[in-house]
């Protein structure tokens, strides 16, 4: 299982899965604490029309126009939600529900209307992603990791996702203190002179970048699951923010690795021929981790008192 075949078939998708999971989980911690956890859900729905429009305009399936389209669609959605909330005096949850369902419906309609059957652009691809197909054909085994020529054959999603992850980590690192302050005590942060609403907007933008980058490679289910499940599980384990982020990264990595392995090799162990959806399995594993953390986590209760303390 760890031989040449593994390097060719599983190394790249597994790394992409891990990078995507961690890139989503880190901003997810702050979204969770700010009670904006469902923004990930909304973003992953609204990127569909953006991607379709980008395809219709450029006529090709390539990364940059699609990322731009998805980013533009997320911005439109954030603007629309805010406009409906202000103009109509509608509570944020309902405004979000109106906007993301309508935009997703528009995206699906555009897909059906345009002739996209020749490319791998369809609703199921948007939901499941195509993690399993991101294989590294040029690899000859572990030695290829030091072979420039073979490395060029790596799926481009890998470098994009790695870049996104580095960006997310760097931004979180640089803005750690203002982010922490404005998340836990907005009023205090404001008296300190921090631009609180700008920090909030920046967080949403970073979340959108992570979501869009991950969406292309792994589909939208992982995006929603990774924004919420690892941070939520980490929140049950610890009370400190630093520790929570660290735990959530750990949970995200475990979900990605275990989910990928179970999806790819689990059915074989059980005697079936075909692998199951890796994206779906990663989301399922993250849910199982959350369930375990909710049941046995030392800090799972609201009081923050240790439930297992004797």
């Amino acid at each position, binding site marked *: 299982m760890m031989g040449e075949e593994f390097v060719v078939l599983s190394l790249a998708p597994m790394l992409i899965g891990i990078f995507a999971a961690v890139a989503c989980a880190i901003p997810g911690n702050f979204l*969770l604490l700010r*009670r*904006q*956890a*469902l923004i990930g*859900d909304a973003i992953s*729905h609204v990127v569909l029309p953006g991607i379709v429009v980008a395809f219709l305009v450029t006529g090709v399936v390539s990364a940059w126009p699609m990322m731009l389209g998805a980013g533009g669609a997320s911005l439109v959605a954030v603007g629309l939600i805010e406009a409906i909330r202000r*103009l*109509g*005096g*509608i*509570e944020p*949850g*309902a*405004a979000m*529900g*109106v906007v993301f*369902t*309508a935009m*997703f*419906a*528009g995206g*699906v*309609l555009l897909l*059906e209307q345009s002739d996209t059957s020749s490319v791998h652009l369809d*609703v*199921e691809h948007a*939901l*499941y992603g195509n993690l399993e197909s991101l294989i590294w054909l040029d690899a000859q085994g572990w030695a290829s990791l030091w072979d420039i020529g073979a490395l060029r054959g790596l799926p481009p999603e890998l470098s994009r996702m790695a870049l996104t992850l580095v960006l997310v980590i760097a931004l979180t690192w640089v803005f750690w203190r203002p982010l922490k302050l404005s998340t836990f005590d907005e009023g205090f942060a404001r008296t300190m002179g921090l631009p609180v609403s700008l920090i909030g907007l920046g967080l949403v933008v970073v979340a959108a970048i992570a979501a869009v980058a991950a969406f292309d490679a792994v589909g939208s*289910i992982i995006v*929603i*699951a990774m*924004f*919420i*499940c690892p941070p*939520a599980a980490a*929140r*049950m384990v610890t009370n400190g923010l630093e520790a929570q982020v660290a735990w959530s990264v750990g949970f995200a990595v475990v979900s990605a690795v275990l989910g990928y392995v179970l*999806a790819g090799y689990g*059915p074989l162990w059980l005697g*079936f*021929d*075909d*692998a*199951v*959806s890796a*994206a*779906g*399995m990663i*989301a*399922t594993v*993250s*849910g199982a981790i*959350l369930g375990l953390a*909710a049941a046995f986590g030392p*800090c*799972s*209760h*609201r009081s*923050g008192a240790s439930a297992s303390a004797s």
Partner: protein
Amino acid sequence: MVWDALTLQLGYNATLVTLGAALLGMAAGATGTFLFLGKRALVSDAISHATLPGVALAFVAMVALGGDGRALPGLLAGSALSAAVGLLCVSALTNRTRLSEDAAIGAVLSVFFGFGIVLLTVIQSMSSGRQAGLESFLLGSTAGMLRQDAVVIASGGAIVLLLVAALRRPMTMVAFDRVFAASLGVNVPRVELAMMGLALAITVVGLKVVGLILIVALLIIPAVAARFWTDRVGRVVILAGVIGGLSGYAGAAFSATAPALPTGPIIVLVSFALFTLSLFAAPNRGVLAAVLKHQRFRARVHERQGLLALAQGQPIYEGLTLRLMQRRGLIRADGVATELGQAQAAQALRDERRWQVLRSNPAYEEAAASYDGLTPLDDVLTPDQLGALDRELRPKGVS
């Protein structure tokens, strides 16, 4: 073609589907209103995504038992069961742990949906059971719907509608104020259970028509749209039902006219169009009404300031003020006041003096609170009070 569809001329099956979608939309709009008023609109998102594993498991179970995997009642029963489990998970995560409700919703919807997709890929690799078409539960499809399917959907919608009508009073009370409802002896947990049960029923019934990703739109959008038109709960419920029904009817009819018009998205887009119309055109709460109100207010401020300037013999330079006053016949084109203008200016100045006195006198504290620089004092005080005020005013005016 579109007209044929809207007047139900596209054949028996299309007619049945259109009527079923209309009933479903009405029931969804009315049910969703209570979720929306109780600020729990997005719970329906978790419910709908949690139906997928149930659909898949029901398919597998029916095939394993040797039946047709696509029998609609069986699939709906399975989806109801797994949606109920999802709902239980949301409430357990919200009540038993420190997670907030939105995090619980997000966790449940993504994990159940992910697990459902794992099961779908398992089914795709099964050789038996004619699984084609199971994906239509994602986005809804009425093409190839059987007569008994349409009957199941229409009667399901009708039953939910009747239940909403029967339970509207306790549900209204709980949606607005649980504590107050409990103090009146309403069994709050049971009513909330009923509310969630109805949302679950709508989701399950709507799966085949709208699809599980978009059914949440039919629960939220009509209610939000209806809220613009009225402040009375009963009317919001009825209007949301009407908007939902119209969306279902028109959406299903449009989508029957061409194969590339998927049913679910079209229904959602029709309801979004009705929402947009409401957002802009509704009286009182609509954007257009707010703009008009603002315009009128601005015109009154400008006119009042213009009159005060006239009364004190100051020149007016501001363009809008000049235009407004000329249109009302208060000044001539060269800026000189007409007779009417002089009369009204004197009145405005007197009113302003009266207000000044009134606001400096603590005895009129209550009336002074309504000062906005526009309201004529005659609207605020009784003639007796006005007389008293003028007596105070006179010595100052003389000296």
